[in-house]
């Protein structure tokens, strides 16, 4: 949604550098020195680990079959690190399990977008002509449409469920990846070594995969990282509005919504999921932004 301009910047500087392939070692070493990448990766590792380990962590049941109403609205204590919610459930456990939901939805959604987008983008850019015209036009159409609205429309129409949310986000997101790949494919197509490859008889598909794709790996990762952050935002927003993850499955967005009436007497119900949500999104954004800085050829070395 919001980072269209930064994508343009990146494409522009990428074009300037002629899509120069920087050595992986170089990239990794510079990433290690970049504060944003380091802090973002740390956050992601923490959250992902917690999410993955959720089933075996010694926590309370996030969706207990039997509710204990007397336990409702308890403030944070050694028993309940994040307190309990309005139905007596342990907030900490729900926050961790909520991470599973958000991360699963986001990564799957971005994964599908990536697949569709890369396929279509490569095809459009590499082959040109009519397929390019059609695909490029479609890309532009979906590009302008705000992804949240699209996701909202789909979720509302198809009924709220995890699968639908993933579908909705994928449909609105593929355009960004497609655009990136198309641009890369277009510029690489004109390069000499493609001609050489063709002259040697390599088939189109092979060329696409072995030459074009590796060059684009870096911006794809940046875009995907920022995409995951965005997807998490969309999923939590949809859950907040009630069209995303349905209760009793814990979802940060929904937990925040349920906490609104209790802001004064039990702020922890909204606060803890909110803070965790913020950190997760921040983490992915940091990695994406940081990597972008690392990869931006203009940032290297001296000026003038």
């Amino acid at each position, binding site marked *: 949604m919001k980072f269209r301009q930064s994508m343009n910047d990146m494409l522009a500087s990428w074009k300037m550098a002629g899509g120069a392939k920087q050595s992986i070692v170089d990239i990794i070493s510079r990433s290690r020195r970049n504060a944003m990448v380091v802090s973002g990766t740390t956050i992601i590792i923490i959250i992902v680990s917690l999410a993955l380990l959720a089933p075996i962590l010694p926590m309370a049941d996030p969706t207990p079959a039997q509710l204990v109403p007397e336990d409702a609205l308890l403030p944070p204590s050694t028993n309940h690190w994040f307190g309990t919610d309005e139905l007596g459930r342990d907030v900490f456990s729900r926050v961790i399990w909520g991470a599973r939901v958000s991360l699963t939805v986001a990564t799957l959604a971005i994964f599908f977008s990536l697949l569709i987008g890369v396929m279509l983008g490569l095809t459009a850019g590499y082959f040109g002509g009519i397929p390019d015209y059609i695909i490029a036009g479609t890309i532009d159409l979906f590009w302008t449409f705000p992804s949240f609205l699209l996701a909202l429309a789909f979720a509302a129409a198809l009924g709220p469920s995890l699968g639908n949310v993933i579908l909705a986000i994928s449909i609105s997101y593929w355009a960004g990846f497609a655009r990136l790949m198309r641009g890369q494919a277009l510029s690489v197509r004109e390069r000499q070594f493609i001609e050489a490859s063709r002259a040697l008889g390599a088939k189109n598909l092979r060329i696409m995969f072995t030459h074009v794709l590796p060059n684009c790996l870096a911006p794809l990762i940046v875009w995907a990282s920022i995409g995951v952050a965005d997807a998490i935002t969309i999923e939590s927003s949809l859950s907040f509005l009630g069209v995303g993850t349905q209760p009793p499955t814990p979802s940060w967005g929904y937990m925040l919504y349920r906490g609104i009436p209790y802001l004064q007497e039990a702020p922890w119900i909204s606060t803890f999921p909110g803070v965790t949500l913020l950190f997760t999104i921040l983490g992915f954004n940091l990695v994406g932004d940081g990597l972008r800085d690392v990869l931006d050829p203009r940032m290297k*070395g*001296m*000026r*003038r």
Partner: protein
Amino acid sequence: MMPGRKPLVEIKGLKTQFLLHEGTVTALDGIDLTIYENESLGIVGETGCGKSMTAFSMLRLVPHPGKITAGSIKFKGVELTTLTDDEMRGVRGRQISMIFQDPSTSLDPVFTVGSQLGEVISLHQNIYDDEVLRKKVMAILKLVRIAAPESVLKQYPHELSGGMKQRVMIALALSCNPSLLIADEPTTALDVTIQAQILNLLKDVVKVAGSSMMLITHNLGVVAETCDRICIMYAGRIVEIAETLDLFGEPQHPYTRGLLTAFPKLGEKKEELAVIRGTVPNLMKPFPGCSFVDRCDNATEECRRVRPTMVEVRPGHFVACHLYPPGGALRDG
């Protein structure tokens, strides 16, 4: 240094360096240069030799993270390196002005030609009356031989051709009658057909205005046409200065000779283009001796250890090379 001529700019021991965290790049390594009134001085050298940096240092516009780290620049007797920012601004555009290399990136794209010219004139001459300003702008546009000044006034830079843009740049530079006009590669970005026109224009307007010109270029052909004296720079140092005819007729420094032979001449048949072997040295590594040592066919041990000083080998002809030791007989070479 030259009898009977008043110096306009006197640069002594100028050092300009860039402090990066990878190291320090010495763009100018102790430059001694004098520009006299009413003369055209050409500064010639390869890319990166410091020619533009000399100009920027004179105007104190060295881009960050660069600084002038040593030396003095005297303009009409006034030391420029110690002026305040305000005082320096009074010098820029009014006493010394500069034409940049690429006219398409040197003009503010969102203001019209007329407004940019008017801005400079009104700033330095304290004119605020629109009518008077307009007349002055028109006058200067005519001076640089722009065909339809009324319409050019209202146009934006991107609507003009390369040659026109460069004329506008010259107009901007001359609008307040500076004593020194610096032209940094004024024709490099232009079509060959336009180059001659612009060079002639430069020569004429400078002469008419009675200013001095410092013409920076890598093209020997350009300076041959336009300059009275030529200064050859290499790796941040000056290696030779002489009057034009003298330099072309009797080049002394091995680098100069290399440049001249590398330049193909009309009517000459050659099998191969002569090149100077090697590449420019890394400006981040300080070199105690002569900077040309790795590419010079006459290099000796002394050349590697000791930096040569500027010696006047003929009247008005200076070289910095161990082939010409100070006060001594010329070595074989």
